[in-house]
């Protein structure tokens, strides 16, 4: 949990990811023109924001020892559903702004309910979350395709675009949202009984339950939060595209999980931090951005992502070994 303050002696190993990130940043600044410019840094931040928002909550899921593969499909589902609700309400005589303002909370609630259903299968029926969310992934994608009938749904009010591609001062709006979620989730994970319970559950669910922690309730909440966050991202992505498309959000789950893992979370639960996840997101963002600037083919990005995960896992286990060698 608090690998960041296990012991003062180990500061260097604790900041390893950050150090590597910094080295990479300097390296790219030197070799890639335009890398170290305000415009490009903001560009990087924008590119990681959508997945980053989901990654905050995915960190909670993974720390608790579960997994959620359905987030990408939920993004598509929510985008399509909000556009669809908007469309039928407008057809029913409402003006576009009112319709959108009604549609957004409805969609968030519906996606939260999806998360609740997932958690019930996981906690009550004891189905592994991998299986439940694998099923949910297909179901949600199917629902998105069915609602949209294969085509993007249009008809948002013009201001709606702001949610996906607007700016607050110089900073992209999604990045502001991402920053808020990072701060809130960091606070929750580090400083609240709820956050501490998540670590306890991931480390040993039986001990946690015995200590009076309501394991099922906490799992339900984090699955709901994760799905709702994916729902929010879906709305933002559809805002950016100005339409609800059933094909958005593909591979989101893998990218999000990769970022969390790169940030040092363990799939067996009990370990992982929001700080790590933020680093993981930036890591991926920087490398992919630099590759674009350097003119490397897009096709390489999958190879790079894969390599990054392997590299990060190697780093994390190596660090752990080192901790053990020092008798920790």
């Amino acid at each position, binding site marked *: 949990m608090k690998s960041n303050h296990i012991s003062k002696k180990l500061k260097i190993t604790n900041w390893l990811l950050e150090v590597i990130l910094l080295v990479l940043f300097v390296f790219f600044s030197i070799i890639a023109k335009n890398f170290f410019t305000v415009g490009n840094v903001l560009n990087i931040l924008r590119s990681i924001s959508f997945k980053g928002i989901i990654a905050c909550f995915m960190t909670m899921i993974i720390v608790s020892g579960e997994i959620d593969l359905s987030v990408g499909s939920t993004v598509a589902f929510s985008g399509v559903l909000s556009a669809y609700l908007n469309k039928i309400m407008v057809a029913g005589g409402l003006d576009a702004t009112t319709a959108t303002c009604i549609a957004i909370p409805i969609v968030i609630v519906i996606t939260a309910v999806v998360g609740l259903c997932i958690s019930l299968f996981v906690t009550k029926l004891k189905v592994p979350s991998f299986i439940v969310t694998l099923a949910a992934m297909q179901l949600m994608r199917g629902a998105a395709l069915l609602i949209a009938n294969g085509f993007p749904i249009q008809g948002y009010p013009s201001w709606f675009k702001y949610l996906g591609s607007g700016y607050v001062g110089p900073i992209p709006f999604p990045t502001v949202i991402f920053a808020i979620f990072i701060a809130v989730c960091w606070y929750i994970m580090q400083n609240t*009984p709820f956050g501490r319970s998540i670590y306890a559950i991931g480390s040993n669910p039986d001990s*946690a339950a015995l200590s009076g922690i309501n394991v099922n309730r906490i799992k339900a909440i984090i699955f709901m939060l994760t799905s709702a966050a994916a729902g929010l991202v879906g709305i933002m992505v559809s805002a950016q595209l100005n339409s609800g498309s059933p094909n958005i959000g593909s591979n989101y789950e893998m990218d999000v999980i990769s970022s969390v893992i790169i940030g040092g979370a363990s799939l067996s639960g009990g370990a992982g931090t929001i700080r790590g996840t933020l680093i993981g997101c930036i890591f991926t963002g920087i490398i992919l951005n630099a590759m674009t600037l350097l003119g490397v083919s897009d096709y390489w990005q999958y190879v790079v992502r894969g390599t990054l995960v392997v590299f990060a896992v190697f780093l994390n286990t190596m660090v752990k070994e080192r901790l053990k060698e020092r008798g920790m």
Partner: protein
Amino acid sequence: MSDHILAAENVSKKFPGTLALNNVSVSFGAGAVHAVLGKNGSGKSTLMKIFSGVFKATEGSISLDGQNLEYDSTEQALANGIATVYQELSVIKDLTVAENLLIGKGKMPMKNKFQINWNEVQRKAREILEYLNVDIDIHAYVRDLTVGQQQLIEIAKAMLVNPRVLILDEPTSALSDSECERLFTVVEELKKKGLIILFITHRLQEVFKIADYVTVLRDGLLIGTEQIENLNSVKLIHMMFGDVEHHPRTESYVVDEIVLEARDIGNDKIKNINFQLKKGEILGIAGMLGAGRTELLRALYGLDRIDSGMVFVDGRQIVKPTPYKMKQKGCGLLSENRKEEGLCLRLSVGDNLVLANLHAISPKGHISRKIEKEYIHRQINELEIKVADDQLPTNSLSGGNQQKVVIGNWLNTKPRILFMDEPSRGIDVHAKQQIFNVMYEEAAKGVGIIMVSSELEELLEVCDRILIMHNGQITGEMAADELTVEAIYSLCIQEEGCV
């Protein structure tokens, strides 16, 4: 007919801090069943493990038929004709009986390098089961067999290597009476075939049923070997426990106020449980393994379902107890498996000390680092937990210190009722005494404690009152100062008339 003899000569085994076996010389003849008895920590398991190659003796030697045995692995012991069947089954449930019997390096009959000779597998499996006079379908999946049948498969597997010595480590502890009977028939069969059979058990009735000789160990020393005809249970229990001096507590903190009451509680493991726990009372629960002691605590704390009956805390009924509800009511449970059900081993010592107190240390909704430190350091100081830094992971601590962390976690909740399952298991004498002292202090503060322990002396020393459990039921209730270890042991094994 003892042309085969398994012998140990002046065997000692030292472990850090303890002498598990102290100069033991004993021999076991062929064509007989030798029961090896002793209470927990007597050294009987250590001796068996030296024979089966798990441990190497620190001093002394072991021999079979006068030939010195020198080995340090179970494979080598097996090659020397000594096979062991352990209490924990090692069958693979998703394979068939035949596959289970023959699986293993070099045992599977092959047609060539890559193909298994299934006909040969079946022939061999059938052969060994016939040899043991056991009627089990070799094509059945082991998952579908009863525990007793699985135990027989284990024995058959051991017999495939044609051993001269068969060590059975508490083979009956999970078996029903009829399954025991079948096992005994097989053991009799093997005895006739001239094997040396060592039979470890806690159940005295079985000893009289199956054994020809009885060897008793106590505190690492050989107490003696006797022919079964010369023994009765009184004598046997005395050999096992010796002249125990126990010092019941002189001061009692029992207040005449009921904090916990169980009325007719039952589920699939326990039935008709009725008792009351008073404020400041330490109530012991004695019984053999499988008597339902742990299951009773689990049911009361809401970890297992309760099918019938009612639980009252402070006179108020708790409907469908869950650990969450019970903790709110001031209860805490110390599990017998601290690693599986007590600690989050990967989290720090500090984290574990406040695991049950997350809301208490967060008066304003978020964790107050100051209060958290107070909670952590209070327990580290009071329980004398030896740890350099409370941020170290809990798995770096010794067993005794880990146990103190679990206890500290509960003491931090200022509990009013504590369920303690084997609180002294796997910890050293000093830590044990410290934990008992903590229990006295808590009782003095008015905490009601229920303690389950397999160490009968401990129960007599610590408790005010002791309940005896057998087959999931409470069969007796005694004040601790009325009892002796022998008496409580006889009650636990349900052998009337030898008190």
